[in-house]
Structure formats: C-alpha cells, structure tokens
C-alpha cells in the first residue's frame, strides 16, 4: 500500500515540477524586453487606479463557511458508506445500523441547510431579506433604501 501511495506521489511531484521546468527551459528561447507599459497591470488600456485589493461581498465568506461544514460532512460519510454494501449483502442488523446512523447524520445537517435556506443566507442577493426582517423587528424605521445600498 505504501508502494501505491508512492506511485501517486510520483505523479504529483512530476506534475509539480513541470511548470518551473518548462518556464526555466523557455527562458533561453523567449525574448525579454520589459518596459513600464508592459509591467503595469492590465485595466482595459487605462492607467490603473487605486489598489487592486477591493472590499468584497460578505457572501463569499458566508458561502465558504457553509461549504466548510458540508465538506466535513461529506468527508465523514465516506468511510461509513463503504460498509453499506457488505452489510446489506451479508444480511442482519448491521445494514439498519449503518443506514440509520449515516442518514441520521445526514438529516441533522440537512436541518442546517433548510435553516440557511429559510433565512436567505444562501441567496446571493440578501439585502431585501435582511431589510424585511429589520422592518418587522422595528430596527429599521424607513422603508426607503439609502442610495449607497441600492447597487447590488
């Protein structure tokens, strides 16, 4: 088994040394005439304005967090799922055990997904939902959207 892991590793190592190797070899053939126009960042022909590091939509982050939890779930279900076939073909109570445990696990996290769904956290445009809840709770007085929040 260590042998097989070594085989897989040799693929990854070969794939990882290819880019530097190719770039190194092509160094001897390609021209290199840098000047300031070439070295600026490309911004559709305009002179770049400001820093490239802009503030992001929080939703990227929210999606990443939800992903993290579901990733753990999928990873944890893999070893359990491998047992199901043998358990069913052998008969007996193990199949029920595997079925109930793994799908109980799945169901509990599915509740989380439904919660997110209802709260509108997996909708990309969420301002409207938040405003609605804020209006209902009285936190937000006016129905009018401020001008800086209108762009979505």
């Amino acid at each position, binding site marked *: *088994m*260590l042998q097989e*892991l*070594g085989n897989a*590793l040799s693929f990854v190592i070969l794939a990882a040394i290819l880019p530097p190797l190719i770039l190194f070899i092509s160094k001897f053939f390609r021209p290199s005439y840098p000047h300031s126009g070439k070295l600026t960042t490309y911004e559709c022909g305009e002179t770049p304005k400001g*820093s490239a*590091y*802009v*503030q*992001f*939509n*929080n*939703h*990227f*982050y*929210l999606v*990443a*967090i*939800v*992903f*993290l*939890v579901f*990733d*753990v*779930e999928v*990873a*944890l279900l*893999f*070893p*359990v*799922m*491998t*047992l199901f076939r043998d358990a069913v073909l052998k008969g007996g109570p*193990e199949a029920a*055990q*595997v079925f109930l*445990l*793994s799908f*109980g*696990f799945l169901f*509990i*996290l599915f*509740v*989380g997904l439904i*919660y*997110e769904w209802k*709260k509108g*956290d997996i909708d990309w*445009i*969420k*301002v409207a939902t*938040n*405003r609605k809840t*804020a209006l209902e709770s009285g936190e*937000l007085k006016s129905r009018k959207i401020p001008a*800086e*929040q209108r*762009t*979505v």
Partner: protein
Amino acid sequence: MALVDLFVLSCIVLGALSAAVVAFHPNILYAAIALVFSLLSVAGLYGALGADFLAAVQLIIYVGGIIVVILFAIMMSENIYRGRFVEGFRRFIVPFIISMVVLVGLVRLMRRAGWPKTAEIMNLPSTGPIGQALVGPYALVFQYVAIVLLSGLIGAVVIARPHYTETKGDGT
C-alpha cells in the same frame, strides 16, 4: 536509507521550516501559505504512518476548506495583508522562554518514556475500520459530531451574516 525514510525526513524538514515561517513571518499571507506546506507535510506523514484516509481528509478539509476560509478572511479585512506586523523584540522574550521550556520538557519526556520506540509500520487499509468504528463504538460521537457541526454552522452564519446597515461592497 530506503525511499520511505527519505520521504519522512523531507516531510519533517519541510514541516519544521514552514511551521517556523508560520510563527515568525511578518506578512500574514506568507504565513498562511507556509501553513499550507506544514499541513501538506503532516498529510505526508499520515500517509507514511498508514493513515491514508486521514491524509486525504487532511487535504480536503484543511487545504481545501480551512485554508481557503483563512485566505478569504485575510482578503476580506483590508489593511492586514499589506501591513507588516513588525513587533518589538520585547514581545518575543517571554513567549520564547515559555516555548523553550515546553520544548525541552516535551523532548525530555519523549526520551524517557517507556513505550516501544521502533516498530514496523503496518500499512493496512484504514477506511473500512474507520467506518466500522464510526458506526460501532463511536456511534454516539458520530451523531454528536453532526449536532456540533449543525450548531457551529448556525452559529457561524448568524455571526457572519451581513447586517443590513453594513452592506457595502460591489455585489460581485
């Protein structure tokens, strides 16, 4: 020196160097990338120790999940990736003493302990046994993990949810 020894040695060297970078590099982004390499070296050691499933889990959850979330967090908070956190030398004195004491203590403990120090590592398939354990003696913990995951999910989302008064950004 067999190939596996070379592999373990290089993993250890890579892990130690990148862990040092994580601890000391002034740029937080470089520290995060060094963290990737230290995690990869630990995954390599898992592979060498016959825990192939755990190595893949380490790759999927740590490198594919946690590191991406850390990078997102670094990107989200402007001012921190460009800033060089140059701490004064004084800030290092007490932590350095503490950590040296811990390191010396750990290594002394390790050398003195009475466990078998060398053994042939058996490389048996580990996915099936892990699944057996998850539905056998660890069944309750398995369900408990689901509940912890659920509460963590809801908690994190409630905390991170963009508030309507704070929605800025360009929507992309």
